[in-house]
């Protein structure tokens, strides 16, 4: 019980005590920041590797293997930061082809306005202009409330929320109606957790617009060397 008791603050030593206490706080801060920095460095590569592996799995989820026959991961281009996709960093676009003809684009996109910040998306858009499928790759939405946008957390296993975009293009749903029903659009939301659904729906609509408008250019662009 001798530890952590108040010091006797004697008048002449007050400044010295403050300085010493301040110095100790600095030492603790530096020490624990170092621990965090070292952990960050040690974990950076494995974390990036598992994020990459997850992305490859996800591509399989948004784009069925039967729809293309090229080496998808090698047919990749990098596009500069694209506001239409909600991205402030360069991103990869994978180009699926069947028998040499354009089949689908796999794009990264983001919804900046989730309930708890950014929601990262991956979507495949068929060359004919429909969304094939969308998946949420990273989000911080409230667990058990807004996280149904993530198919793994969605309680409706038979008809998950995120699948309602499947097969929809501007021919099926007019461009002005890519919003949740609450905003006068065509897509469902779960009551009490509209913000997450709204963010994703708007982002999918924007990304589809971008993919449809730029499809020809994206398929024609020379591929960048696969990493």
């Amino acid at each position, binding site marked *: 019980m001798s530890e952590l008791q108040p010091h006797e603050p004697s008048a002449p030593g007050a400044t010295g005590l403050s300085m010493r206490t301040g110095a*100790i*706080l600095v030492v603790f801060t530096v020490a624990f920041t170092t621990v965090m920095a070292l952990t960050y460095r040690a*974990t950076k590569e*494995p*974390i990036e590797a598992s994020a990459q592996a997850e992305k490859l799995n996800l591509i399989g989820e948004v784009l069925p293997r039967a729809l293309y026959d090229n080496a998808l991961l090698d047919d990749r281009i990098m596009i500069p930061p694209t506001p239409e996709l909600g991205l402030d960093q360069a991103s990869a676009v994978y180009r699926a082809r069947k028998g040499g003809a354009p089949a689908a684009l796999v794009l990264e996109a983001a919804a900046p306005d989730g309930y708890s910040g950014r929601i990262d998306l991956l979507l495949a858009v068929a060359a004919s202009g429909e969304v094939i499928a969308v998946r949420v790759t990273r989000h*911080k939405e409230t667990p*058990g409330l807004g*996280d149904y946008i993530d198919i793994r957390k969605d309680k409706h296993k038979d008809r998950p929320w995120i699948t309602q975009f499947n097969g929809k293009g501007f021919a099926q749903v007019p461009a002005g109606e890519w919003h949740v029903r609450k905003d006068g659009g065509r897509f469902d939301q779960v009551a009490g957790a509209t913000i997450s659904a709204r963010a994703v729906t708007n982002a999918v609509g924007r990304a589809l617009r971008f993919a449809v408008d730029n499809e020809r250019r994206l398929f024609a662009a020379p591929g960048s060397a696969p990493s």
Partner: protein
Amino acid sequence: MSYREIVWNGLWKQNSGIVQLLGMCPLLAMSNSVVNAAGLGIATIAVMALSNWAVALLRSLIPYEIRIPVFILIIAALVTVVDLAMNAWLHSLYLVLGIFIPLIVTNCIVLARVEAFAAKNPPVASALDGAMMGLGLTLVLIVLGAVREFVGTGALFAGIDMIVPSARAVQILPADYPGFLVAVLPPGAFIVLGFLIALRNWIEARAERRRQRAMSLDTAAAPA
């Protein structure tokens, strides 16, 4: 304090969820299903044991006047380390628990146990105290989660396939049960928690009456 007392304190006498009423923020937000509750609970146990242990180890180096900022620094750093390490090396577990870990920093029960226990006790006892307080909270979380999930959705264990891939949620009420949204939303957490606290108080009051009756019987019997 004996190890037995520490265990009893954490699980019942000073239970953080229904007696100390600390750590309400994650408790209310995350107890809407059994799997969420268990996930947050497990992560909390780990962080509390670790931070109590670390503070107990360093307690002679921490000046009394700045103990709170130092404690917060230690807790935040440990949570960050656990978060990164799990993401890197236990990735499948991280996919389930990852979102809960940053939430733990906001749980004042962690700071409360560091301040009330770890700052004055040796490392092993402190780690046990942290783990038991965490376990006590976890049990309350799981009961809350089970009641809210059952009343709110008519099912139990939604999302368990993320932990055990072959397991499935159990639908207890008929599938056309319309659900009861209030139970799943935060107000439901307050209501169910209120019932849990009442239940615990009732059990304690009954035990107290028995003790008193036993005592009065003893004193009545003694002179004869």
